[in-house]
């Protein structure tokens, strides 16, 4: 039995689908109490011969509720995490919620605990431009300077590693890059910042560490099921990543002509310094839109490696980047058309 948390989310639904397609294992999905998600119901109807259980429990759940969720489970794929909100809210959902699951996993004596991390947790500020980021790149030394999501994912992974090191949690960490796919926003922070109806394009010619949702789900299924896999970590980035500039051009051509102001790399640090000064001077009245540290970590030319996932997991991105982008842009264009119709 494989337990999937966050099974109703964007990535979680694909993980369940791929588990159904690529394994024969019974599957249990942790879902919020009182919900009966249509997407999971549809999957169950599509695979009538398979065990697909919905187990109601919200993280952090009491130990007893999680013990019952883990009854008979050998592998956990922990996808659930807070995506938006303040740092305290994300720590409460992602870190505090995960710890309850780590403890229950130890009690259940699992074979494997697959944690969905984030490729954003690396210490890229210390790397020179053009450097390669892989699983050996150290973790961020100043997570408190990063955005709330990265901060919470960093603390979640650090905690999971402590449980693995000190208490024997059979941990495999899978760190996806930016997950794209139908309905996913593609003008992410690494591309630029949207404000006042404009896109401040900050990514320039940097290659975007994208992974298509189905490819990422494939990697997670491999991490959950590949025999004789020890404690390991895999960064999941698809091949042939596009540049930020290509994404903006395609978005403007295919989704909507968002006005875009490209900021050259050389301007990032002075503007960030000005923003930080205004924030200090106004005692927080002017928010920090981006900091010098952001400029050194997010909008830097780096190469993200997927070699380890390919060599150890045997993972290959099945959907090529061109097709992944086509599907993503098509869904975004459809959504834009819907907005126009309703307006």
């Amino acid at each position, binding site marked *: 039995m494989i337990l999937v948390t966050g099974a109703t989310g964007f990535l979680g639904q694909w993980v369940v689908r791929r588990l159904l397609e690529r394994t024969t294992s019974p599957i249990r999905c942790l879902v919020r109490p009182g919900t009966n998600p249509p997407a999971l119901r549809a999957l169950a109807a599509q695979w009538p011969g398979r065990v697909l259980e919905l187990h109601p429990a919200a993280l952090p759940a009491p130990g007893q509720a999680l013990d019952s969720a883990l009854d008979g489970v050998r592998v956990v794929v922990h996808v659930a995490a807070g995506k938006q909100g303040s740092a305290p809210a994300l720590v409460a959902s992602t*870190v505090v919620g995960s710890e309850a699951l780590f403890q229950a996993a130890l009690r259940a004596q699992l074979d494997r605990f697959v944690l969905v991390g984030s490729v954003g947790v690396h210490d890229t500020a210390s790397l020179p431009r053009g450097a390669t980021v892989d699983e050996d790149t150290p973790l961020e030394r100043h997570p408190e300077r990063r955005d709330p999501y990265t901060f919470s994912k960093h603390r979640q992974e650090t905690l999971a590693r402590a449980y693995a090191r000190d208490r024997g949690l059979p941990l495999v960490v899978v760190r996806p890059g930016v997950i794209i796919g139908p309905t996913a926003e593609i003008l992410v922070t690494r591309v630029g910042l949207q404000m006042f109806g404009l896109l401040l394009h900050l990514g320039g010619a940097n290659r975007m560490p994208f992974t298509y949702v189905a490819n990422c789900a494939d990697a997670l299924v491999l991490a959950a099921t590949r025999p004789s896999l020890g404690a390991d970590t895999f960064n999941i980035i698809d091949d042939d990543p596009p540049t930020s500039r290509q994404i903006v051009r395609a978005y403007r051509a295919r989704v909507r002509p968002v006005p875009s102001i490209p900021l050259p790399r050389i301007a990032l640090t002075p503007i960030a310094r000005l923003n930080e000064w205004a924030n200090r*001077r106004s005692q927080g009245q002017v928010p920090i839109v981006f900091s010098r540290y952001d400029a050194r970590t997010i909008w830097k030319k780096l190469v993200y490696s997927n070699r380890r996932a390919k060599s150890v997991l045997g993972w290959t991105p099945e959907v090529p980047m061109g097709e992944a982008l086509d599907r993503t842009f098509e869904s975004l264009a459809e959504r834009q058309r819907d907005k126009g119709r309703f307006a």
Partner: protein
Amino acid sequence: MRIAVVGCGQIADAHIQEARKIDGVEVVAVCDANLHMAEQAALRLAVPASYTDLERMLSEHKPDIVHITTPPATHLSIGRLAIAAGAHVYVEKPLTLELRETDELLEWALRHRRLVCVGHNHAFDAPALRARELFRSGLIGEVVHVEAMMGYDLTGAFGGAIMGDANHWVHGLPGGLPHNNISHPLSLVVPFLGEDAPSVTAVGRRLRPQRFGDRRDDWFDEIRVLLHAGGASAAITFSCRVRPVQMALAVYGTRQHVLASLESRTLRTVAPATAPGPFRRLQLARRDAVEARREFRGRVRDFLHARLQFFEGMNELMRQFYAATRGEGPEPIPASEARRVSWLIDEIFERCRAAEGAP
């Protein structure tokens, strides 16, 4: 002054940041029952110490003031411990779960000669302070009627987090989400109502889709309250439907009216017209335009002087409370007013429940 914060959820950030803007204040420690919550606050906000053991924090740091930003069900017990350790306490709203607990906390503070301040911070936003100043100066005359409106967005940053979690402590309050918020509009109207205990009429409705099948569906999302005290009345509306979300105050007096928006930080007075016949309309419209221009210019000046802070009222309330603890000013919210709001909250939800099902 040495400040400690107990409870490291979302609002704790604001308490720490606003406290640090006050001269001579040092945030010495944070505490939370959960280690990760305490650590994240200390790390992000550069607070030198974090604890999960409140008594240890109190004995090691001996704070002058403890800010309590935990769920309301814990305010009384944490407040008692902090006061017993010699600290004054600034407590997030609602002060406690019910009047009985409020009385116990206030009596405990009185016995230990410490002060309690409840976080009715919107009552210290500039427009609310200006409205009270106009009342005290006699320009409004006698208060005939006061209105306060509070909108709440269930899909906003706080609302979304609450609605996404059936285990959120807000759903466990006797009145659910409005119980956590109605003290804001109440704190705006109560200073205008005199000392007599008001009569209370209240009706609650559930107008949002009932889609969870758990306690997230239980509480009222629209509450209308009518208070009568002496010759004055007050109407309060709490609504999760109204857009744009705002907090507004209107005071109707025997000499002038005051209309204040806490969202735009503006205030407008309405004085009797003196022009004859149809020119009255022109005179009133011109006054509106003049006041609107004055307010706009004032807010531009405020922006340029960094006075349009999101938690401006919290900062002002803290300043006044800290001064009161040093004996340098009166309590910004007297115990009698904190007690009255607590009593009103109990009354409102009791009446809403009693009226449920009535046409």
